[in-house]
């Protein structure tokens, strides 16, 4: 009898101890709806790898005020309807404190009103301007939108006296977005677009279009496309012997483009965030340390090069954790704390959110690059 009582008591004590232990370390759950399958799979992979790395580090140091963070990952498959469903599931079933994602601009659109309605602090990892314009109280983002990059590029063109430009872009979300920004902002920078043609991303040969540019008054050529198109463009550009200054979008900054184009890329210029050129930045640049350290840590842990998408997740997580430390997990307080982020030095730039700006970046986060000697160099 006594033995039984002792056993019951002992197990009750143990259960209590376990329960209180669990109480003390109740995790903060963060939802991460990103793309893990399909053509965009590498994006979700980079984001997850980054968050796993940062979460491990944070939890090793005692988490947020003693509470560890825990991620719930869902695969949105790059589909808006799936993203919407999973976003709701994170809120209703998983009871998450905050959400980092989704990744694609076309997923972000339909998800935005849900975050707003459910009052869910959300930092999106997509770049579209529509995410933060008009401002939604509960929705923020970290990647820079085309508007900022284009603005920097046009300012550079103007400063170089290249006021008449030929514009080429691909007929897809990326190309259309860049084209729209160039056309909208050209006038305010005193730049005239004298040639404006669009092609498709799968075009194997662009020489007839490039040949037409020769006969225009253009003093420089700007191309806005992603994936294989800018490479074909750059090779055809050399082939038809166009000698005008050649500008590409920030999509061209990935290392693969230089590998693929080789000597054909010499002299090409592009505006882009500091991530790709982290090691080129002057030591005085406040972002240099954080960018190069992230790139080294990622490479060491995952054996692959980090990319811009993982960097977006990095900044979103750091901003969220800082807000959690400050305000705890109460949704309204957390939202307000995110909005009060000022001067956070991140990989994507120096972020300062405000009630009217949930993108947080300015043109200062963008620099001009030029291919020289087979690698990117910073333009002054």
């Amino acid at each position: 009898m006594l033995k039984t009582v002792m056993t019951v008591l002992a197990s009750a004590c143990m259960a209590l101890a376990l329960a209180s232990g669990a109480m003390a370390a109740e995790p903060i759950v963060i939802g991460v709806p990103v793309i893990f399958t399909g053509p965009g799979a590498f994006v979700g992979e980079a984001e997850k790898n980054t968050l796993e790395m940062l979460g491990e580090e944070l939890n090793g140091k005692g988490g947020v005020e003693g509470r560890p963070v825990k991620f719930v990952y869902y695969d949105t498959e790059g589909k808006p309807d799936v993203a919407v469903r999973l976003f709701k599931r994170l809120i209703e079933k998983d009871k998450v404190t905050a959400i980092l994602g989704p990744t694609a601009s076309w997923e972000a659109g339909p998800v935005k009103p849900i975050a707003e309605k459910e009052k869910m602090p959300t930092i999106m990892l997509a770049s579209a301007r529509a995410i933060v314009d008009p401002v939604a109280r509960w929705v923020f983002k970290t990647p820079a939108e085309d508007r900022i990059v284009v603005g920097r590029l046009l300012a550079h063109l103007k400063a170089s006296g290249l006021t008449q430009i030929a514009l080429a872009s691909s007929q897809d979300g990326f190309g259309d977005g860049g084209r729209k920004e160039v056309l909208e902002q050209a006038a305010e920078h005193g730049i005239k677009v004298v040639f404006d043609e669009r092609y498709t991303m799968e075009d194997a040969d662009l020489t007839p279009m490039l040949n037409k540019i020769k006969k225009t008054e253009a003093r420089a050529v700007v191309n806005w496309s992603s994936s294989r198109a800018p490479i074909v463009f750059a090779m055809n550009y050399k082939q038809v012997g166009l000698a005008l200054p050649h500008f590409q979008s920030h999509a061209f900054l990935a290392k693969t483009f230089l590998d693929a184009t080789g000597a054909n890329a010499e002299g090409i210029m592009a505006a882009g965030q500091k991530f790709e050129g982290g090691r080129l930045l002057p030591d005085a640049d406040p972002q240099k340390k954080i960018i190069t350290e992230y790139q080294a840590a990622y490479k060491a842990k995952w054996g692959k090069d980090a990319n811009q998408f993982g960097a977006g997740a990095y900044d979103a997580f750091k901003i969220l954790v800082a807000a959690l430390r400050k305000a705890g997990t109460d949704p309204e307080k957390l939202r307000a704390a995110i909005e009060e982020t000022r001067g956070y030095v991140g990989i994507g730039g120096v972020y300062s959110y405000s009630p009217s700006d949930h993108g947080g970046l300015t043109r200062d986060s963008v620099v001009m690059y030029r291919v020289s000697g087979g690698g990117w160099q910073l333009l002054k």
Partner: protein
Amino acid sequence: MLTDILQAIFSALTVGSIYALVAVGVTLVYSATGIINFAQGEFVMLGGMIMVTLYGEWHWPLALAVPVTIVITAVVAAALMKVSYRPGRSVSLVTVLIITIGASLFLSGSALKVWDGDVHRFPPFSGDAPVTLAGATLAPQALWVMGTTAVVGVALALFLRFTIHGKAMRACAIDRGAAALLGVRVRRMVLLSFVMSGALGCVAGIVITPLTLVDYSGGMLLAIKGFAAAMLGGMGNVVGAVIGAFVFSVLEAFSVTFVSSSLKELVTFIVIILVLLFLPRGLMGPRRVEGLDEEDVLGH
């Protein structure tokens, strides 16, 4: 003006040769089996990707890298035949079509795992310095593509018309049952057609990659262009596939030059739809039903 026209012609010849190499592979499998192989573009992708590794990264000599690449791709094509071709079982052509689409997704997904999501290229065989004629330019690699298309097109047409295996293959297309009764080993012919189209796609990938680049997801797009060209020329006709491919590319290049590159697809597809409206079996297609019967399409 002369330069513009010449540049458009050069572009059309380059792009047309690329389409033709894919279209010929599509049409070859069709002519032997009645199957429209949507995985044809994946053979092109595989050819390009394997070459990126063997030739671009490991620096094997061309004479070794090319045959090894072709053999690997042909083996993959043979495996595809084993899963997609099931004579005697009541499997409709539509089902087989879906199998080839599934195979296409499987192959591109596998390529993503084996390689990565990036765009790749290896150096052109004869350098980058363009050939110039009256102000118009042509990349030296484009000459390789055109030459390959010409050799492959002629060799295939001769093979199908004059060799016993080629004739057997065509017999299978007309009526597999009758061909079998006449002693044609149908299964072997079908395997041969898959292996040949795999090798063809692979060769296409090898010669076009320095121009068009390659990534794991590019196969399906190529297959669609190749399929459209093959349809335009007349499904099952090798010469027709080549002609269809060039009609396609000429339309594209000239609509870019004289209209706008934004309207290129529109102009091209309007013409193609018109052709198919009045010549439903394509420019060079048979004037009577062969291979793909209506009831086959409907799955009985």
